């Protein structure tokens, strides 16, 4: 157990390096790393610093955000099915991002894109909590998630269909499935501030979530202020999911798969799961993003496709396990 965190950190580092070294341009390991560190004025520096580095950094940011958000929501709702993608928060964030881009708001001031995504993600989370209640029974949670996802997805398609740009409509796939292809450092700087803010807020939730495993009354007796916990959770989740989705589209299942695998390894303690899931999410998204580049190098296979192929069977398994609750 104590070896889990160093192991995960090592995994992130190794995959980060691999992500930097894999690309369509055939360049040696040492050449590409020296081009990254020393600006030698060759186009290779441009490739490393403006194409590969932002891609690897975004995989870490997005993965950590989604993994952590999943662990936090599951801890709060005490339900392993609570995941930003499944419960419609990612789709809501994507809607905000598309609105910001198509109305020109994103061009008007720097952080408009992630902030609008945060705003709609916040609406999504609040709507979900209003529908599912603080205990979040699986059936209501999933139904509310389907409804929110469907509504946000439909509005997103509408906005893109109304765009005067003929390419916009075909990008529904990107927003619903997510991809890290051809992003730049600009996107890293767009996503980073809100992500860091969200991580810090989520990190403060550990003790409260641990106490909550004993039940709400016990948690309150332990001095946990539930309203405040809830507020922090909602804002933090909306920040991290909003920032991640604004630059990479809605990537599903990360927050479902990662906490599920890591939960037994941390003794099912939500506080430890929170940090382990951040690292685990980064590992998973880095690995999935390397996979899409190796499987179909020229086609921009969407990250969401790989994640759904991994996550959907697990989702089915979880539903099967919790089916008593549905009956």
């Amino acid at each position, binding site marked *: 157990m104590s070896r889990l965190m160093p192991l995960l950190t090592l995994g992130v580092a190794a995959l980060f390096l691999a992500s930097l070294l894999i690309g369509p341009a055939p360049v040696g390991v040492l050449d590409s790393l020296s081009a990254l560190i020393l600006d030698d004025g060759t186009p290779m520096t441009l*490739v490393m610093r403006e194409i590969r580095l932002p891609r690897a950094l975004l995989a870490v940011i997005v993965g950590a955000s989604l993994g952590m958000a999943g662990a936090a929501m599951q801890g709060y709702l005490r339900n392993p099915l609570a995941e930003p993608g499944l419960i419609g928060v990612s789709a809501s964030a994507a809607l905000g991002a598309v609105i910001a881009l198509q109305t020109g708001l994103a061009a008007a001031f720097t952080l408009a894109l992630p902030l609008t995504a945060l705003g709609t993600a916040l609406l999504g989370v609040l709507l979900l909590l209003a529908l599912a209640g603080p205990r979040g029974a699986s059936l209501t949670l999933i139904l509310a998630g389907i409804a929110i996802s469907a509504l946000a997805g439909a509005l997103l398609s509408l906005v893109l269909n109304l765009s005067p740009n003929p390419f916009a409509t075909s990008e529904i796939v990107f927003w619903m499935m997510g991809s890290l292809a051809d992003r730049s450092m*600009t996107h890293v700087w767009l996503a980073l501030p809100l992500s860091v803010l969200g991580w810090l807020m989520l990190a403060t939730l550990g003790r409260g979530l641990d106490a909550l495993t004993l039940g709400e009354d016990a948690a309150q007796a332990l001095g946990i202020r539930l309203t405040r916990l809830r507020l922090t959770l909602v804002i933090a989740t909306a920040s991290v999911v909003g920032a991640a989705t604004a630059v990479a589209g809605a990537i599903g299942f990360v927050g479902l798969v990662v906490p599920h695998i890591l939960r037994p390894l941390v003794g099912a303690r939500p506080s430890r799961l929170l940090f382990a899931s951040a690292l685990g999410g980064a590992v998973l998204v880095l690995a999935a993003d390397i996979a899409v580049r190796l499987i179909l190098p020229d086609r921009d296979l969407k990250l969401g496709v790989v994640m759904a192929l991994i996550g959907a069977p697990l989702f089915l398994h979880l539903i099967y396990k919790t089916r008593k609750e549905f009956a």
Partner: protein
Amino acid sequence: MANRIAPRISGSVRLCKALLLAAALIGAAAEAQEAPRRVVSINLCTDQLAMMLAAPGQLHSVSFVALDRRASSMADAAQDYVINHGRAEEIYLMQPDLVLAGRYTARASVEALENLGIPVATFDIVTSMAGVRRAVLEMGEALGRQAAARDMVADFDSRLAALQAEVTRRPRAALYHANGFTSGRASLAHEILTAAGFENIAITAGYETGGKLPLEILALAAPEAIITGQPYPGTSRAERIMDHPVIEALRRGAQGAAVTDADWVCGTPHVLRAIEGLAPLRRALEATR
């Protein structure tokens, strides 16, 4: 008729005269039958060829795309015609005696029109300078304006030859469109670029047939000029890639940049304007090294 009674009248001279007269009459009838009088075009490229070649009053309607300045070189001229949206019902009600369509324009509409007994002339997509000549001659044939088409081809040939005259060095240029697509051999854009005296880096980088050119490969190829598409209003990820920091760095590093416009879209003599548009850039690059 005339040639059947002619032999009975007398003499071979008269016979010959009568035959000549008859031939002339039949020929004139055939020409009158051949030249359609109410033509409707439903494809951007046939729209433009028809507008250039049709006799006054012969072309009745062109497609709505012909009005779009981004895609059509003849948006102003198109305003003088009735506009259609390529739907079978709409076209049928115009009662055309010839419909002009592209090889890949709305197959269902074209088939419906053919079933209704309306003749449809289908034009292939033009991918080369030779194809432009062919398309002009074909359009002349379809409209019964062969002489005008021949004149246009002669003019095209001489202007093209004049443009291609002097090239001391071929600067390496990259065509980079929305979604990171580039154009390889057997594409009009490649032909325009080559005719303007550039070397297309897609070919040297191994993307002979065009397709998606990864940003990394483009950056490493370090082209001397980068030619991107003209963005549409509204935003899309597909077009934002043309503002990627790598492309911006290449634009700064490269000595020149240009933007493709409506003249690049269709294989009509207007491609000469696209070639002419690139000439100053090539001359500037030639001078640098």
